[in-house]
Structures are given as structure tokens and as C-alpha cells.
């Protein structure tokens, strides 16, 4: 059921009521939808007059019509209007659902508008499109659904927040994520967990089944009403409400399995031993050539036969996870009251062992008309979610961790067994035991230094549990006709308890003798909005004026402690006994936002459209508190012109609108609450307390401002069977806050000071097209798709030549942001392949010199392993900064989705494709997979250079060589294109005919099966082209380092209503 446009229909009714003295004849009837359900609130007008009424809760209407009248026009938003001849009997009218979206009510900030009249850029995703998808938070399901909204899933860990970029990256140092507003109250998003291994996205506290629809505000006109928080766009979520007269109990459930896909092929034990020993032989040969004496390294792999194994580490780390999800809701309404109550339960198990997500949720949405003009309502959601995950190395800064499960199956020697013969864990100190391998250099057992993943998986745990109460009470008073005063007070209280436990047996807990940490965080927010809206129509002039204020106070506190040296392995919780305790994770923040805003919309005959929006925000973090934001937009609906309507093409080409907007928004998302204060922190020196200078204040810091320009055309053909729009956007972000890198020798805390110094622009086109290819009683086929292009450029930084590094886990820097290039471009030394003459990796220096690397194979003055290919002379190693070449952009330059829906009788088939491309990825995982330390390698390493295989893909193997593969220097060998098409979702459903199920008191029943992430077409050689090990980092996007990819999920489910 579509939403109802209250203000307009109210006006119609009021006007109708005035002319009642002309009546002479009574007509009654009932209005139903094509699904057979009655439609309350449908407008019934006498054709050619303004006389009218609307249907009651049962879909019935009674109207007195003039004797001369012979036709009624029945309309309802979302349905094709119909005319009905007035006869003698009762009218039975069935409206066809109108699948065009032109008349939909679109939720905009603090109100609604119809899409037909909208001049701002707003994308709508209906709740149906995302319900029943096997995700934890609804934002994960938005991938590819809306033009201009690029969403990537950075890894396959459950409840990891997706990276959302609306029209490109909108910030460098702050958050580029949109503002999420749930039923009018801004909420929390992003990873809020205090424990690095386990992510927690608070948006998972909303059951996707509770969502009615989602609006994405993109341009200045739409977003300026959210002022200082809107640079990254705004995502408005409206939850379901009860509907008049339709008491209904619905139950949705699905269950499914999740499996890993596209895992790397790594060497088995036999190949591993052979290749590593070959590498040692080559190393000895290198030493002989360099020093004249034979190298003494031992071919130590697989030396101790007793410990030999052939372990496929994946088998211990990945699994088939079973999930199930249930949602029960009860809704209905009378003339005065509508209500909806729902409860949900979700239990999802990921493909990683012990990666589990569980949610309980409950929601009540009620609205009650206390008096004719006073409506009260409340919307409350409570949710408890618990996410647990082993250390995947894919979240936070874990990419290079020695415990990361994304990495361990790639590096661990396959000839080591996870268990000893006696069933105990194979460990040596914190790490895994040497197994049958001897260190070639020393003859001692070769200890990998990495952890035995089984110890972690079977003993440690990392959980993040959240309890969230989110709700608002509102009152709407219509003081005089068309003038609504509305007040809304909302709270959003979110508590987290994050826990970690490390066993003392081995792994991260070994050196601390076992440890347990517990962190408790409270996010408390109140938000109070007061608005006055006045709608007035005079003739063809339609005005709407909105004025309001909003205040929001957010208080965040976290405290925690880490206990170490467990008294006895019996204790596995924080409350057990330990020898030591130290405070950890303490944090405190508070911020306050006060705003004054207004919006004026005007249209003439729904033909000429105009909207002006302004907002003045004061924010506590700044020294200069206030900032102003505005948006202007105008539209021209050409198809409303008389000449158009009367033309002979109007039937075929029934809608055409031009619109454009301009304005500014701001960004403070992610700025530290106390950024403009000079601060001293306190800690310990031994047992004494300290104070030290911790923050260099910059009192001049303020909002990042974005100037957004939009031009758009929207159209409808064939009675809007074909609708679409095309938009050009240009978004100039000014006053970008940069953590201006300070020379480390200045000793500034953090080596950076934030300042508004940069600018960046994003521009591109967005296209939406929807075509009802076939509209037949029995067979229906709808295609809809969207495409967005993005051209991102950094226009200015602190100074022209500035290169801002973006590091991965602080250990590897592949990305540099510079003026004139897309943000976060990859800087890599150019690879020139393998020298067929000697099997050495060749790189190109900045001056064009071709150089090659021979690990420990050079000698003489200036020996670095690097020689000039043409002369053989020693040469300094190439460096990334001096010799690197830029590869960019790293953000996709085009992306979108293509949705096909087929209906045949009761069957429905949905095929949803998501695509993206034009971007580069730094595949650091590939570097690791070809490292010539003891690490295991990808099977393609077999195509390495040997005297017999001189035209090889990989260099001659030299033991210990971590340069030729790119572990030590970022080289273009590991930079790849990231284009892909993903079959994101395929679903096949069957809806039982109402005759079959009516005996069971069911009003609707559908069963379905679906596959999420069904297939992937890409040339990218890594696990998943969407991987982003640095999550939403603006400076280091597009890096694949030891992360786990996305799973494939098969589900089956049913939806029934009574």
C-alpha cells in the first residue's frame, strides 16, 4: 500500500464540504485495490467539479451529487485514477495499482512531497525491496538500489557496516557517510564496537521488515534542511504504520545457509615443501655469487618427517552457517487510531566459524486522533542485538594481525598440523609450533610467529551487544485550516557492552597470561523538534511554508578495563579472578546542536515549482558556533502545460519535468567533540600521575561546506509505463577539514592538526529507468535500473604538492591523496615484469631506468640487491614516493543496479544485478600470497621463473625475498582494476491464490527461495572486488589486505498474513 498525501486530500475535502448545498442525489459505493483489499482514504470526485469525499475505513463512500453529474473520478495515490459512471445501484470500483512512482509521497526532511512536484533529488527504496534479504542491517541491502548511492560491503563479517558514499567521497578527514534519520530522529551509524575484532553497526537494531520505505536525500535542495549534517547526504527511514480498517497479522520468516566463495587456491604440503626448498637453494646460489663462498642455508622445509601434515586451514576457519529470521506484526486502525506492533528475531551464522549475529526487536507505532485537529503519535523501537566474531583481521586495524583469520589460511605452512598427536594444540609460545620445518638460516625450528587459529577459534571470544531504545512522541495540531503545529520529542539511547577474552594457552593472550576486557558504552541523545507548517492553495497557487527549530544533545561515555593473568584457565569471563587490572577504553564526549530552519515551496498549477530551504545551525564543538546553509530549487513540469496535454503525443509522452537546484550543506560528522579546545591529558609515569599536552587547538576550525548543484529531467512515457530521470550533479566540497600533517619533528600530538584547508569536487550523472515491459493479468515484467557516474577530484590541499598518505593498519601505505587526482589514489612503482634472463623482478624508476632485484644476491659498494638491468651496476632501491606512479580513481567511476521482476500467475521471479567499475584496487593480499618467507603461496606461484621456464609470471624464488612480490614496496603488479557485475540477489516466489488460502483464514501467503551473492563476474584476481580493509576510510579506500570476502547465502522463506 502506498502512502497517503495528507495535506492535499484534506484540502480537497474541505473545499468539497463547502459546496454541499448544490446536492440532489445520493451515490454510494466501495473502492478496492486490485488485490481485493478495500482502500480507505481514496478520493472520490464528481467529474468536472470540486465536489468530493473520501472513502471510510472500510473503503466505502457516500456522496450527494448534482443531478447533472454522471461520472465520478476515483483516485488514490499509487493507483491509476478511474472514472465510474453513476448508475442506479451501488458502485463497485476496483483501482489498478499504479506502478509508476510519480505520484508517490516522498518523505523529505520534516515533511512529505509528491514526486511529481519534487524539485530536489530524492531516491526512494521501498521496504519491500529490502525485506527478507539475509542481512543484519537494512543499509547492507541498499546496494545498487538507488542511483547516486554507492554501497560496498568491505568484508564478509556479520554486521560490519557497509561503506556508503552518496555521490562520491564528501570528506577526507571527517565521515563521508550519510546522516541516518529514523522516523525523524537522527540516529547512530558506523562501527561502534570497542573490540577491534567484532563490528557493531547500530543500524542493525532496526528489523528490516519494520521498514516501510527509505528515502535518500542527495542534492542541496533536499538536504539543506538537514544543514550542517548533510554533506554526505541523508537517509530517511520511515517505519511501517498501521492502516485504517485493515487489522492484519503478518508473519515473515526465512532460513538459510551461508557459505564462503572464491577462496584463494593455496599450495598443498608437497608443493610447499618443494618450492620453499627451491627458494633456499636459490638463496644459497645468490650468496655464492655475491660472496664467492657457498651459502650455508639449510633446505629445512619438511625436514622433520614425524610432524608432517597436509592441512587445509580453510577447513577449520570457514563453515556453512545456518540462519533464521522471524518477524511477526499486528497492525490495523480505525478512523481515530492506527497501530502497528511487531516483534522480530534474527539468528544468523556467518561463514566464519563463531561469527554469529542475533537480534531481538520489538516496535510499537501508534497514532491517535485525540480531537479533530489534534493528532498524537508515538513510535518506539527496542532492540537487543549481539554480534560475536573471531578475529577476522578484516575489521578495524587488524589487516596485519598475526591472529587474523583472513590471513592465517594464506600464510600458515600447510605441512603444519593444528593439533599435536596427543590432541593438544600445536603451539610454541604464543605462536603455532614449527611442525616439520627448520629455519634455513639458523637450523633452529622454523617458528612461523603466527597463531594457531584453532586456539583462537575454540577459546577466545569477542562480542558486542547493544540495547537500543529509540522512540519519539509527537503531537500535531491543526490550528487553523492548513496550519499545522507539530512538536516531536525523541530519545535514542544506545548501550553497548563489548567483551573480549583471550586464553593464556597461546595467541594474543599468551604474553598477558590470559586476559579479559569489558567495555560499557552509553550513547544518550535527546532531540526536540518544533515545526509550524502552513499549506495554502488559492486557485492554481499552492504554497507551503515550514518553519522550525531543532535541538539535539548527545552524550557518549565509555568505560572499561582489561584484566590480565588469569588466576586459573577455568575463568573465561571478565568477572573471574585475574592478577591484574588496568583501565582501558575510557572515553567521554558530548555535543549539542541547535538549529533554526525553514522551507518555502510554491507551485503554480503543479507546473512551475519552486522550493527554498534555509537552516542556521549552532554546534558545540566549534569555537565559532554558528553556520548558515541553504538550498534553492525550481522545476518546470512541461507536461502540465495546456499545449502539451492537448497535443497528440501527450498520450505517449505523458510526463516531462525539468528541475534544478543549488545550495550549501555542511559536515561535522566525525569531528571530535572538543576539537577547538587546547587540552592536557593525564596518565601515569610508573606510579605517579602525569599531565601532558595532548591537543593543539585550532580555534578557526568550522564546518566543511559543500556547494551542490543539480540539473535534472524526469519523464514518463506510455501512461508512465516507462519512467525515468537523468540528473547531472556537481558537488564542490569546500573548507575540507584535513588533519594537516605536521612534520613529525615538530612533535605535535598525533602529528597533525585539523584545519579547513582543502577542496574537492564530485560530479557525474545519475540515470534511473523503469519500464513495465509487460503488464498483463497473467504475466508481468518490470525492469528497473540505475546508473551513476562519478568523477572525483581533489582540487586543493594545504599546498599543491602535498601528498597525504592513507595507511593500512598503520603498516603499509598504498594510497596518497594529492591535488588534481581522485582521492586516495594508489601510488605504486611501475612493474616491468620478470627479467627472462635471470628471473628477477624488474621495476621502473622515475627517470625511466629499468632496475631489478636479487635478494641477497648483490655485492660491492652500494649493494642493496637492486641493480640496473642494462649495466648490472648497483643502484639504490626504488622508492614509492620518488618512483611511484599514480593509479586512480580508487572509488568506482560508475555503478548501479539492474532489477528484473517477473510475475506469472502466482509466481514471481526477481533478478537483481549490481555492478560497479572504473576503479583500481591495491591487492596487498596478492603480495602476501607470493612472499618468499616461509609463508604459503598461491598455487599460481608454480609459474615462477626457472632456467626452464624463463617466460614466467613470478620471479625466481629466493628464500626470504619479500621485495620482489610487493610486500616491501608497493608495486603495480598488485594494482588491479575493480570492475564487476554481481548477481546480488535472485528470488523465486509463489503467492497462493486467495481461494486456496481463504479457508485457512489467510489473506496472503507467499513462499520463496533466494540466493544472495549468487554470482560474480570480474577480472579482479582477489576474493572480492568490494573488499575494503580500511572500511569507510576516505584516505585509504580500495585496499585488499588479508580480508575475508562476501559469503553466498541461500535462503527460503514465507510471508503469510491473516
Amino acid at each position, binding site marked *: 500500500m502506498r502512502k497517503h498525501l495528507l495535506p492535499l486530500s484534506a484540502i480537497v475535502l474541505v473545499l468539497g464540504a463547502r459546496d454541499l448545498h448544490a446536492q440532489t442525489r445520493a451515490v454510494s459505493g466501495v473502492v478496492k485495490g486490485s488485490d481485493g483489499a478495500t482502500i480507505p482514504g481514496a478520493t472520490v470526485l464528481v467529474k468536472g467539479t470540486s465536489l468530493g469525499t473520501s472513502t471510510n475505513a472500510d473503503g466505502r463512500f457516500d456522496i450527494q451529487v448534482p443531478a447533472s453529474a454522471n461520472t465520478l473520478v476515483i483516485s488514490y495515490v499509487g493507483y491509476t485514477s478511474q472514472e465510474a459512471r453513476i448508475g442506479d445501484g451501488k458502485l463497485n470500483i476496483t483501482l489498478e495499482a499504479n506502478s509508476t512512482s510519480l505520484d508517490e509521497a516522498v518523505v523529505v526532511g520534516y515533511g512529505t512531497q509528491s514526486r511529481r512536484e519534487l524539485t530536489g533529488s530524492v531516491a526512494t527504496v521501498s521496504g519491500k525491496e529490502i525485506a527478507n534479504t539475509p542481512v543484519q542491517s537494512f543499509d547492507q541491502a541498499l546496494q545498487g538500489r538507488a542511483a547516486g548511492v554507492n554501497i560496498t560491503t568491505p568484508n564478509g563479517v556479520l554486521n560490519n557496516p557497509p561503506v556508503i558514499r552518496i555521490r562520491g567521497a564528501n570528506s577526507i578527514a571527517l565521515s563521508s557517510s550519510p546522516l541516518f534519520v529514523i522516523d525523524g530522529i537522527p540516529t547512530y551509524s558506523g562501527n561502534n564496537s570497542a573490540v577491534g575484532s567484532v563490528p557493531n553497526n547500530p543500524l542493525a537494531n532496526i528489523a528490516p521488515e519494520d521498514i516501510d520505505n527509505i528515502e535518500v536525500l542527495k542534492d542541496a535542495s533536499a538536504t539543506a534542511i538537514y544543514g550542517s549534517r548533510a554533506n554526505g547526504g541523508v537517509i530517511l527511514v520511515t517505519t511501517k504504520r498501521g492502516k485504517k480498517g485493515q487489522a492484519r497479522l503478518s508473519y515473515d520468516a526465512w532460513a538459510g545457509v551461508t557459505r564462503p566463495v572464491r577462496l584463494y587456491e593455496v599450495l598443498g604440503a608437497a608443493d610447499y615443501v618443494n618450492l620453499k626448498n627451491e627458494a633456499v637453494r636459490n638463496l644459497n646460489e645468490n650468496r655464492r655469487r655475491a*660472496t664467492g663462498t657457498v*651459502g650455508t642455508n639449510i633446505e629445512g622445509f619438511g625436514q622433520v618427517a614425524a610432524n608432517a601434515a597436509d592441512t587445509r586451514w580453510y577447513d577449520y576457519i570457514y563453515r556453512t552457517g545456518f540462519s533464521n529470521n522471524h518477524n511477526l506484526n499486528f497492525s490495523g486502525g480505525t478512523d481515530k487510531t492506527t497501530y502497528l506492533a511487531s516483534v522480530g528475531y534474527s539468528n544468523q551464522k556467518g561463514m566464519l566459524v563463531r561469527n554469529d549475529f542475533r537480534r531481538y526487536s520489538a516496535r510499537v507505532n501508534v497514532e491517535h486522533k485525540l480531537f479533530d485537529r*489534534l493528532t498524537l503519535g508515538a513510535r518506539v523501537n527496542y532492540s537487543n542485538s549481539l554480534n560475536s566474531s573471531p578475529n577476522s583481521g578484516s575489521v578495524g586495524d587488524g589487516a596485519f594481525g598475526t591472529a587474523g583469520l583472513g590471513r592465517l589460511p594464506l600464510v600458515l605452512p600447510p605441512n603444519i598440523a593444528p593439533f599435536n598427536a596427543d590432541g593438544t594444540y600445536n603451539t610454541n*609460545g*604464543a605462536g603455532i609450533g614449527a611442525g616439520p620445518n627448520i629455519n634455513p*638460516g639458523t637450523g*633452529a625450528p622454523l617458528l*612461523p*610467529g603466527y597463531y594457531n587459529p584453532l586456539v583462537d577459534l575454540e577459546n577466545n571470544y569477542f562480542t558486542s551487544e547493544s540495547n537500543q531504545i529509540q522512540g519519539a512522541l509527537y503531537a500535531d495540531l491543526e490550528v487553523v485550516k492548513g496550519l499545522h*503545529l507539530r512538536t516531536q520529542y525523541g530519545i535514542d539511547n544506545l548501550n553497548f557492552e563489548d567483551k573480549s577474552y583471550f586464553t593464556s594457552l597461546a595467541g594474543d593472550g*599468551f*604474553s598477558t*597470561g590470559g586476559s579479559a576486557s569489558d567495555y560499557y558504552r552509553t550513547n544518550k541523545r535527546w532531540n526536540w523538534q*518544533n515545526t509550524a507548517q502552513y499549506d495554502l492553495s488559492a486557485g492554481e497557487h499552492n504554497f507551503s511554508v515550514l518553519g522550525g527549530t531543532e535541538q539535539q544533545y548527545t552524550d557518549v561515555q565509555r568505560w572499561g578495563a582489561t584484566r*590480565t*593473568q588469569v588466576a586459573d584457565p577455568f575463568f573465561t569471563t571478565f568477572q573471574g579472578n585475574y592478577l591484574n587490572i*588496568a*583501565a582501558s577504553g*575510557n*572515553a*567521554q*564526549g558530548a555535543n*549539542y546542536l*541547535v538549529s*533554526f530552519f525553514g522551507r518555502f515551496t510554491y507551485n503554480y498549477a503543479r507546473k512551475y515549482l519552486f522550493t527554498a530551504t534555509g537552516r542556521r545551525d*549552532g554546534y558545540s564543538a566549534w569555537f565559532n*558556533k554558528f553556520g548558515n546553509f541553504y538550498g534553492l530549487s525550481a522545476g518546470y513540469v512541461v507536461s502540465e502545460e495546456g499545449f502539451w496535454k492537448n497535443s497528440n503525443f501527450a498520450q505517449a509522452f505523458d510526463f516531462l519535468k525539468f528541475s534544478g537546484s543549488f545550495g550549501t550543506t555542511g559536515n561535522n560528522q566525525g569531528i571530535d567533540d*572538543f576539537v577547538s*579546545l587546547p*587540552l*592536557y591529558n593525564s*596518565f601515569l*609515569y610508573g*606510579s*605517579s600521575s*602525569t*599531565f*601532558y*599536552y*595532548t591537543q*593543539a*587547538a585550532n580555534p578557526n576550525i568550522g564546518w566543511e561546506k559543500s556547494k551542490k548543484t543539480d540539473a535534472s529531467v524526469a519523464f514518463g512515457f506510455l501512461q508512465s509505463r516507462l519512467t525515468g530521470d537523468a540528473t547531472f550533479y556537481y558537488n564542490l566540497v569546500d573548507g575540507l577539514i584535513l588533519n594537516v*600533517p*605536521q*612534520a*613529525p*619533528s*615538530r*612533535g605535535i600530538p598525533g602529528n597533525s592538526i585539523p584545519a579547513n584547508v582543502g577542496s574537492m569536487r564530485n560530479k557525474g550523472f545519475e540515470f534511473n529507468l523503469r519500464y513495465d515491459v509487460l503488464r498483463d493479468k497473467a504475466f508481468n515484467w518490470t525492469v528497473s535500473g540505475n546508473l551513476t557516474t562519478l568523477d572525483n577530484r581533489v582540487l586543493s590541499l594545504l599546498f599543491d604538492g602535498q601528498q597525504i*598518505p592513507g*595507511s593500512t593498519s598503520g*603498516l603499509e601505505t598504498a594510497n596518497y591523496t594529492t591535488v588534481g587526482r581522485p582521492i586516495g589514489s594508489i601510488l605504486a612503482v611501475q612493474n616491468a615484469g620478470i627479467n627472462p634472463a635471470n628471473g628477477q623482478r624488474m621495476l621502473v624508476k622515475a627517470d625511466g631506468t629499468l632496475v631489478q632485484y636479487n635478494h641477497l644476491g648483490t655485492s660491492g659498494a*652500494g649493494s*642493496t640487491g637492486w641493480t640496473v638491468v642494462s649495466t648490472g651496476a648497483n643502484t639504490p632501491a626504488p*622508492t*614509492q*614516493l620518488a618512483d611511484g606512479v599514480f593509479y586512480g580513481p580508487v572509488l568506482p567511476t560508475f555503478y548501479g543496479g539492474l532489477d528484473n521482476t517477473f510475475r506469472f500467475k502466482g509466481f514471481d521471479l526477481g533478478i537483481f544485478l549490481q555492478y560497479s567499475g572504473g576503479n583500481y584496487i591495491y591487492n596487498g593480499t596478492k603480495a602476501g600470497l607470493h612472499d618468499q*618467507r616461509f609463508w604459503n603461496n598461491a598455487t599460481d606461484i608454480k609459474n615462477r621463473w626457472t632456467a626452464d621456464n624463463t617466460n614466467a609470471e613470478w620471479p625466481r624464488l629466493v628464500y626470504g625475498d*619479500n621485495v620482489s612480490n610487493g610486500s616491501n*614496496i608497493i608495486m603495480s603488479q598488485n594494482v588491479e582494476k575493480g570492475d564487476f557485475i554481481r548477481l546480488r540477489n535472485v528470488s523465486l516466489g509463489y503467492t497462493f491464490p486467495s481461494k486456496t488460502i481463504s479457508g485457512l483464514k489467510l489473506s496472503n501467503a507467499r513462499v520463496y527461495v533466494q540466493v544472495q551473492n549468487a554470482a560474480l563476474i570480474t577480472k579482479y584476481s582477489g576474493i572480492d572486488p568490494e573488499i575494503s580493509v580500511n572500511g569507510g576510510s576516505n584516505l585509504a579506500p580500495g585496499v585488499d589486505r588479508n580480508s575475508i570476502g562476501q559469503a553466498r547465502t541461500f535462503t527460503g522463506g514465507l510471508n503469510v498474513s491473516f
Partner: protein
Amino acid sequence: MKSAFRTRVFTAVVTATLGLGTFSCQNDLLNVKPNTQLDGGLAFDTPSRVLAQVNGLYSYVKVGSFLGGRYQIYGDIRANDFINRQNNGVTGLLVWNHTLAETSSNDVTSVWGAAYAAINQVNVFLAGLDTNAGKFGASPFPSGYASTVAGYRAEARLLRALCYYSLLQLYARPYIDGNGSRPGLPLRLQAEFGLGNNDLARSTVGQVYDQILLDLNAAEQGLPASQGGNNVIRAHRNTAIALKTRVYLTMGRYSDVITEANKIVPTSAPYVAANGGVANGLNSSITAVFAPPQETTESILSFPFTAQDTPGTQNQLAFYYLPSALGGGGEYSLNTAAGGILANPGFLSTDVRRTSLVAAVGNERFLTKYPTGTPFTDKAPVIRYSEVMLSLAEALVRTNGAADTRALALLNAVRTRSNSTAYTAFTSSSDFIDAILLERRIEFLGEGIRNIDLMRLNATIPGKGSVGDVSPSNPLYVWPIPSTELSANTLMTRN
């Protein structure tokens, strides 16, 4: 009618509420302040806050990534006495391997950053003492606080000197190479707060040493003779003197070494300072020196850790050297092959430093000088009295030749407390000096002195296992300047 009245009342209430909501923009909320961090303007308001800042300076120098562990570790693992067991790039592999790059963040970038962060804390503190001098004459500051301030100032300058000295040993050519004329470090002496001032060229090695000596001389003047119960963990007059012996030795200014060392080393045993300050001296037992809490008078300066104030993950000395069987991480074992100190015939199997400070696990040998596993509360040593003695001995030999009996007595004093075999006499200065250097290598194994001893003589860094020698002409002989400095400081130059 009743309902209409109620509506009117409600309208009034709502209108009033809206009005209130509009104009009650709350000023205190708009200026909300943190309650876990102190506003900078209040940092010098009480004596306890000023003292806490002094402690803060120490805490910066002793962070795990600098002199709280890693600096000492890097000083040893560059050379050939230790074997990397874990192949872990985070725990010094690149230092051990000599494969550092200017982007290597765990070592090249972090040591530089930690040292300069400490230097700026010192500079900010010194500037704050000047700016706030007016406050110190009145309550709550006690009378005579000026002399307390002078002591604090001296501690700050000593720590700054220690930071610059430590940086020079990794990032600049030795003083002996060009007599201090080679590129040194950007000499940051003013407090850095806001934007700007990124560009600063390198001073020469000699200029940096001049500043170090200026600071240490000033520190010697201003430091108290004793810090009471904190004599090991806070600087007193002897600390400045001891550090000067190290600095002069590193510069090859041997007569100055003698002058300084003479202030605290008597001409003959017992070797206990008798200058009216802390009675620093040679302890009779090396094991006592390293037995927790490592607070004998032999330790002139060490940095403390507690369960609440730990060195941090993968920074702890015991984590690197202590075998896992004894609670460490076993990152490095002692090199048992030829060239390693254990294979040196001068390191007798009966030497206490071998019998008590080295443990065997399987066929591997580990240093157990830092015996405490988690939470790793062993102090990180900076300078010990025995180092002053051996520095003095070396300076005497280099000045007076092999016949110097005081030098022999000093060497034997250190040696014979752990090893029954005393040296009788040396026929040549070079033999004598080799014996002193060997003694230093044995005595200070795992204390970060090895690198200093190699670099100050421009000696080749010996290789181990498959890792080759690094000669002074090799660009890898000194660490690269971090790329972060090069990119932000346009006057900075590469090594």
C-alpha cells in the same frame, strides 16, 4: 464545547512550548567541555599539576616505542648477538635484516615520532614555565618554588638531550665520520603548538651534539643532588654527569669523558660516587642489579612500568628476549653461531652473566636479564654506573695507553664481579680497548648499547645467519629519514 475549550488550552500550551523550544537555545550546552581532559590554560595552576607535567615528560621518553623498550632492542638486534625467531615485521625484523625503508612505520617512523613528541613536550613545558612564571610566586605555590622550577627545568633539558642523543645514534652518521660535519637532525628547541613551522633543515651532527652538551651542562647545574625515593626513575645530578660520559665517548672526546667520569668515579675501589649526590656505585652482583624492582644504586636512570602503566604490546624487553617458556614472547634468541657473543671465548661459561642471565631452551639460548613476564614491569635501563666505569677505562686507555692501571682496575672491577678471571695486563692499547669493548658487549647485552659502540667507532655492523655485514659505507648503516618527515618538512634531506 468542552472539547473546543480543551483544544484552545492545548493550542496555548503547544504554542508556548514551541516558543520556548525556539528560544531556549542552551548556551551552556553550546559550550560543553570535556571532563577527562584539562583545559590547557589551567595546566600550570597548582604545584601538583606542574609536577605531573614533569612526570609526563618522563612518560613520553619511556614510551614502549622509544626508550621504554624498542630503542634498546633495536640497538642490540642490528648487530649479531641475537637471532630473529619469529620473522615478524612488527617486532624488529626489518631492523635485524637491515631492510628498513623510509616508510617502515614500526621502527623508522615510530622511533623518530616518539623522540620528537617527547622533545616537544619538553619544549612546551619549558615555554609554559616561562609564560606562567608569574603564578609561581603566589599561593598555591610554596615560597622558594623558583628553585623547584629550576630543578624541573633541568630534568626537562636532560630528557631533551637524551632524546636527541638517541636519535643521532640511528638517523645520523657517527660523529667520527667527518668530525660532526655530516647532516644531523632538525634541532627543535621552541614549543610547537599550531599550524606552521614544518620546515626546518637538519643541523649538523656536531651542532646537535653541541645542543645536547648545552642541555646536559645546564641540567647538571640545575638538577637536585638527589630525587629521594625516585633516584632511579628521575634525573639527579649524577644522571647528567653519567650521560655526559656517554655523549663525550660517542664523540671521541676522551679527555672530557675522564673529566666527567671523575666527578662520580673514585680513583680506586670501592667504586661509589662520593660527590655529595646519590651514592651511585658498582653493585657487587650483576644479578642483583637486574632483579626486580631493579633499583640498586648501580642503575643511574631506568624507566619504570607497572601493571597500570605497561610498555604496550610488542614493546616489552622481556617479550622480545625472554623465552616463552619463562613468560616472554621469545622474539629473539641469542646467536650461538660463530660471531655471536655466546661463541666468544672471552665470555666464559662460568661467567655469572652467562650462568644467571642466559637460559637454555632446547638448543636455543635466551637472555633472561628482563625476567618478568606479563604485565612486563621490568624497568627499561638507560644508563648504569658500570657503563660510566668502562667508558672511563676506555678513555683512559685511549689517552694514556695500555699501561694505565686505573683503567685496568676499572675493567676488572666490572669483569670480576661476574667472572673470576681478571685481566692482568695488556701489551697494546688496541688489545686493551678490544677487551673493554668485549666487556661492554657482555655487560650490556640487551641494553641497547651495542649499536652505540659500533657506530661511534664507525665499525662494520657484523652479519648473522643469512644477513650480511653492513659496512659504514653502506647506505643501510644509518636508518633512513622517515617519509613522513620528508613529505611535511620540505627542508629535510634524506640520509
